[in-house]
C-alpha cells in the first residue's frame, strides 16, 4: 500500500468525484456559519430557489459583530441588521444557531471543538480563514469565501484543487515561559507569510505532541498566517481524551467505533511531503511582532530590525512603510516599546488555558499607569463561565483588566472594541495588518503571558524574567 500523509487520507476519504485534472468534488461534513460572510450566500440560495442540502451539517453563531459588554441593545444599526439577518436566515432555513443569549455562544472556532461539533477525520469549512484551527483535531478544516459558503449550503460539497503536502516538524521541547503562540509566530517568521501557500501544513514532532489540545489549536489557527489554508495535527491520546463527553461527540458504541477509526488519522511512516521544515523548539524565544505582517516578528530580547540591512528593494520599502505605520525606529530594543492597550482574546488565544496563563502573570499586580485599557475577552460563554468558577475574572478585574462577554472583539474591531489612530496594543490575536484592530491602530502580536506581563510593566518584558 502507498504510504499516505494525513492530508492525503483526509482528502481521499472525502472525494465524491475526481475530475481527473487535479480537482475533485469534496464532501463537507461540517459547516460553521457566522454573520459576516453568510448573508450574501443565503440571498443567493433564495434567488435560485435552492434549499440547504443537509441542514444538520450546519451550525451558526454570531461572533464578529457582537458587543462584549451589554448585549440587550446594539447601537450600530448596520451591525444590528447583520446580526438580525443571520437570525432571520437561520430561522427561515431551519439552521441550528447559538443565539447571543446562549451560554454556548462564542467565537466560531472556539465553539466547534468545545461542543464536539468538530471531530477528527471530518472536512470542516467556514467563511472565515481561521477555520484552520479545527485541524488540531486531525480534521481537514479551512476557510472559504461567500460563494463557497453558498455552494456548501446548496450541495454539501466544494470543488477543490488538492494542495501540496508540507511538514513542519518541531523537535525538542519548549522552554519555560514559551508558548504555542511563540512557536507558530517563529514558524511564520521563518517561512514567511506566503511560505505555506498552496500547501496543507502538518505539524509534528515532540514539541507538538507535548502540547495540549488548546495549544495545538493556537498553532493550527495561524497556519493561514503562514499562507496555508489548512493546518493539521495527527490524532493521539490527547485528542481522544479532549473529545470524550463533548456534547455533540458520539457516545456508546459509536464512540468506540469512532476512536478506532480516528487512531489511523496520522501520516504513514515514509509518506512523502513536498516540503519539510525542521525547527528546534529549544531555540524559540517569546516572540513579538514589530511590523504590519505576521512574518515581521523578533524575539523579545531582540531589536526592531533595520531596513537599511535588507538587500531586496521592494522588501526594504515594505519594512520602511511598516516602521512608519508602527511609529517605530530601527534598532530600538523590543522591551523599550511602551504600550497603550492590551487585548487578550481572539480565536487564537481565548481558551481557558490562555486565560489561566495570563491570570497567573497578573495575579496580585496592577496594570501600569500608561495602559489605557486592558481587555480580556473569553472565546465562548462556556470558557467565560469556567474561568469565573476558577476565580480568574476576579484576578483580572483586581489587576485593572475589563472582563468581557465572548466574541471576536478587538481582534478585528467590527464591534465597538477597537484601537484609535496611533494607539499601540499588545494583542494575543493573529493579524497585525494596518488598521486591523482599528484605523491607524498599531498591533504587536504576542502570547497571553507576554500580553499580561506587558500590561503590568506598561511595555514589553521578557515574561521569563518577569
Amino acid at each position: 500500500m502507498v504510504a499516505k500523509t494525513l492530508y492525503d487520507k483526509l482528502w481521499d476519504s472525502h472525494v465524491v468525484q475526481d475530475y481527473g485534472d487535479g480537482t475533485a468534488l469534496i464532501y463537507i461534513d461540517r459547516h460553521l456559519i457566522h454573520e459576516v460572510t453568510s448573508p450574501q450566500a443565503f440571498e443567493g440560495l433564495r434567488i435560485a430557489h435552492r434549499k440547504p442540502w443537509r441542514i444538520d451539517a450546519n451550525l451558526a453563531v454570531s461572533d464578529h459583530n457582537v458587543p462584549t459588554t451589554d448585549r440587550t441593545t446594539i447601537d450600530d444599526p448596520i451591525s444590528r441588521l447583520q446580526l438580525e439577518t443571520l437570525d432571520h436566515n437561520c430561522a427561515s432555513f431551519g439552521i441550528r444557531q447559538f443565539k447571543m443569549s446562549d451560554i454556548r455562544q462564542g467565537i466560531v472556532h472556539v465553539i466547534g471543538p468545545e461542543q464536539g461539533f468538530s471531530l477528527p477525520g471530518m472536512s470542516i469549512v467556514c467563511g472565515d480563514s481561521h477555520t484552520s484551527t479545527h485541524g488540531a483535531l486531525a480534521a481537514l478544516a479551512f476557510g472559504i469565501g461567500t460563494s463557497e459558503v453558498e455552494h456548501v449550503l446548496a450541495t454539501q460539497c466544494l470543488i477543490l484543487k488538492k494542495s501540496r503536502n508540507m511538514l513542519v516538524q518541531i523537535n525538542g521541547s519548549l522552554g519555560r515561559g514559551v508558548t504555542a503562540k511563540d512557536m507558530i509566530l517563529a514558524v511564520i517568521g521563518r517561512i514567511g507569510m506566503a511560505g505555506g501557500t498552496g500547501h496543507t501544513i502538518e505539524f509534528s514532532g515532540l514539541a507538538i505532541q507535548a502540547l495540549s489540545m488548546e495549544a495545538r489549536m493556537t498553532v493550527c489557527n495561524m497556519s493561514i498566517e503562514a499562507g496555508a489554508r489548512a493546518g493539521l495535527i495527527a490524532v493521539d491520546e490527547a485528542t481522544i481524551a479532549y473529545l470524550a463527553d463533548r456534547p455533540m461527540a458520539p457516545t456508546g458504541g459509536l464512540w468506540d467505533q469512532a476512536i478506532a477509526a480516528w487512531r489511523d488519522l496520522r501520516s504513514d511512516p515514509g509518506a512523502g511531503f513536498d516540503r519539510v521544515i525542521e525547527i528546534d523548539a529549544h531555540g524559540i524565544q517569546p516572540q513579538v511582532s514589530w511590523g504590519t505582517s505576521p512574518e515581521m516578528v523578533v524575539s523579545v530580547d531582540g531589536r526592531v530590525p533595520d531596513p537599511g540591512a535588507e538587500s531586496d528593494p521592494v522588501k526594504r520599502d515594505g519594512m520602511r512603510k511598516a516602521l512608519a505605520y508602527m511609529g517605530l525606529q530601527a534598532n530600538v530594543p523590543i522591551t523599550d516599546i511602551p504600550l497603550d492597550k492590551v487585548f487578550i482574546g481572539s480565536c487564537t488565544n481565548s481558551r481557558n488555558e490562555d486565560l489561566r496563563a495570563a491570570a497567573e502573570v497578573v495575579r496580585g499586580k496592577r496594570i501600569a499607569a500608561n495602559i489605557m485599557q486592558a481587555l480580556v475577552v473569553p472565546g465562548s460563554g462556556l470558557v467565560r463561565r469556567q474561568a469565573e468558577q476558577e476565580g480568574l475574572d476576579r484576578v483580572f478585574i483586581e489587576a485593572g483588566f475589563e472582563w468581557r462577554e465572548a466574541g471576536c472583539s478587538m481582534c478585528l474591531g467590527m464591534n465597538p472594541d477597537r484601537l484609535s489612530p496611533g494607539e499601540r496594543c499588545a494583542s494575543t490575536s493573529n493579524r497585525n495588518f494596518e488598521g486591523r484592530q482599528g484605523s491607524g491602530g498599531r498591533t504587536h502580536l504576542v502570547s497571553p503571558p507576554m500580553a499580561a506581563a506587558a500590561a503590568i510593566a506598561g511595555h514589553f518584558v521578557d515574561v521569563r524574567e518577569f
Partner: protein
Amino acid sequence: MEAIKKLTGLVAPLDRHNVDTDAIIPKQFLKSIQRTGFGPNLFDEWRYLDQGGSAQDCAHRRLNPDFVLNHERYRGAQILLARDNFGCGSSREHAVWALLDYGIRCVIATSFADIFFSNAHKNGLLAVMLANPTIDRLFQDVARAPGYKLTVDLESQKLVTLEQRVIDFSIDPVIKRRLMEGLDDIGITLQTAELIRAYEQRRRQDAPWLFSEEISSADSLTGPNESTT
C-alpha cells in the same frame, strides 16, 4: 457571474508585497449584507486621508494624493499590477467584490493567497501570475508611459502590451473555462446530485457517527434539494 474573454484596460501599479484583504476592504465595510457597493471603500485607509465609516458618502472625503489609484493617470484602471502574496489574510470575498465594484477586472501579480485566488475566479475577476522579472519590467513600463494599457486575452493566454510585446501566461484549464463561460458552480455540482447521495450512503455506513439521528430525521423532513438550474 460575468464572463471574461478579452479585455483591454488601463494598468495601475500597486508596488507592495503582501497586500492583505484588511487593506483591500477594511472591516467596518463588511457589515453590508449586499454583494455590491464596496467600490468607494476599496483600499479605504490608503485612499482617503480621513477615517472611513460605513454608510458614508465618499464623494466628499479627502483623497490621499500620494496613493497611486488617486493619481489622475490611473483613473479608470481595469488592471491592477501587484507583487507577492496579493490578497493574503482573511477569507472575505468582499475584497474581490470591492475590486470588481471599483472597476478592476484583472489583477496581475507574482503570487496570490489561496483563498483570494479562489474567490476571484468565482466572481469573474481574473488573477494572472507572472514571474518576477516580467512583473518588474511591467512596473517599469507602466511608470514610464502614462496611459499604459494592456490587452488580456484569456482564450490565447496572452497579455499584449501597447508596443505589441506579447507575454504568455498559464492558467488552470478549469478556471479558464469557468471564467470564459461565466459558469455557475452550484448548478454544475447539482447535476451530480446522485453521486453526492451515493457518497453519503457509503459514508453513513463507514462512519455513522458523522450522521447523528438528528441529522437523518432532519434529512427526511427537508430532503436534499434537486437541481433547479
